[in-house]
């Protein structure tokens, strides 16, 4: 086993072991599915916008991926507080490998979470295009990598876990709500539209929605390019911040 593999494995093992965390983190997506699905579904469909679950299901999957990924990234704060980070920082392994291994671990964990939510959406009546499922999982993995790296970048700057709620409320939530996950962009007011269009996550949402539902706001090509470029940039940013971290 090399360093990258073992860093990846540690995250996956720890995630699979924390059953309470897996179950706990399903609460929010379920709540959103029920509240938005039941609450808005009828209005949405009555307004002639088509099937709401088709719009909502990919959004909820993404929510679950994004939140899990950010959390795994930010876990570095714990590693620092409980001292384990030092063990990795004195090892003959480059900072980039450590950061990248954690990013891949975070992406894997969040995809597992996303797939669980996907299965739940099937149970509540989501009918995906089956040919799009595997590409969509790859897409979710990239979104997971993007937000794990983002979490690592933030964690490298934060002193303790107390700032985590601030990050969630002022960074992650806005990114999520302004990604078109919960409402269609074509009917949104201009200001919202502009904000969503500069948010890279919007393209991730559109990609997954397109792959599973067949309808793109933008296009497969544009979505993929924006997502990949954003992910690469954030990984570089995360690697740069992590390089400066002191145990």
């Amino acid at each position, binding site marked *: *086993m*090399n*360093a990258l*593999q*073992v860093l990846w494995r*540690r995250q996956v*093992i*720890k995630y699979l*072991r*924390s059953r309470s965390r897996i179950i706990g983190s399903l609460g929010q997506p379920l709540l959103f599915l029920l509240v938005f699905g039941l609450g808005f579904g009828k209005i949405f469909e009555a307004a002639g916008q088509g099937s709401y679950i088709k719009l909502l299901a990919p959004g909820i999957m993404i929510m679950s991926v994004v939140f899990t990924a950010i959390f795994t990234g930010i876990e570095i704060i714990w590693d620092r507080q*409980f*001292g*384990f980070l*030092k*063990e*990795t*920082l*004195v*090892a*003959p*392994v480059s900072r980039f490998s450590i950061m990248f291994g954690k990013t891949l671990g975070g992406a894997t964990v969040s995809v597992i979470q996303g797939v669980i939510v996907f299965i739940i959406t099937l149970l509540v009546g989501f009918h995906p295009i089956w040919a799009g499922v595997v590409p969509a999982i790859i897409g979710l993995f990239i979104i997971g990598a993007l937000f794990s790296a983002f979490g690592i970048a933030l964690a490298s700057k934060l002193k303790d876990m107390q700032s985590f709620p601030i990050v969630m409320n002022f960074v992650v939530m806005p990114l999520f709500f302004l990604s078109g996950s919960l409402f269609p962009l074509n009917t949104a007011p201009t200001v919202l539209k502009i904000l969503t269009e500069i948010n890279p996550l919007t393209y991730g949402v559109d990609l997954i929605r397109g792959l599973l539902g067949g309808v793109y706001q933008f296009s497969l090509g544009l979505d993929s390019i924006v997502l990949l470029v954003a992910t690469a940039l954030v990984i570089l940013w995360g690697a740069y911040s992590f390089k400066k971290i*002191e*145990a």
Partner: protein
Amino acid sequence: MEKMIEAQNLTKKFDSLTAVDSINFEVPKGTIAAFLGPNGAGKTTTIRMLTTLLQPTSGETKVNGFSHKEVDKIRHSFGIVFQDPSLDDDLTAEENLVFHAALYGISKKDAHGKIDEVLNMVDLNDRRKDFVKTFSGGMKRRLEIARSLMHTPAVLFLDEPTIGLDPQTRNKMWEYVKELRTTKGLTVLFTTHYMEEAEKAADIVFIIDHGKIVARGTVDEIKKSTDTKTLEEAFLKLTGSDIRPSEASAADAFKSQARAWGRR
């Protein structure tokens, strides 16, 4: 004699505080050296610079003949037990060691034998499948010592390694370290609060205070030069303070207690 640890005019400033003040020292191969000094003397900061965790403000370090710029070579050369805990409590003892083996590029085949060997050394082989969070403070410390030796380092840094250990385990650890020194030529630099530990285990002692080395040599040499009968008296004379653990700062006492209770 080959020098295994060297520091030249090594300095670390934190804003206006000079934690380590232009110190010079070397430790020859196969030597057990002690850093003895009160809290805040700069012991940990020096070790952090020697182990690539902290960039010196000025000055040079060398470990195993490698300068601090040859980061990877230095990191392969030493093992370390940190002053504060550094295990993953959510993994088993064995998983912590497997993780270490992978980071240090030890092959799966070699890792297996090595894990057995180091776990036997610290008497934890029967607990290898248990989660570290179920371990006592002393057991965690032993596991960290085992881990630090897994990749057969040439130099071992031990930052207050025996805090929280019972006397029996403490003795056993030193027996093992001394044996490695004799059989493998291991070079050791440790810091301690325990005067008698420095006296018993160290070939050379560096007394460090306010970021400076105020005395150095064998215990006998230090006693002679200060005209005192015990290392304790010598220490008092040199630094004007007493560092028995009971006199340690409240923060430190809290820390070691937190460690003993396993923190989580």
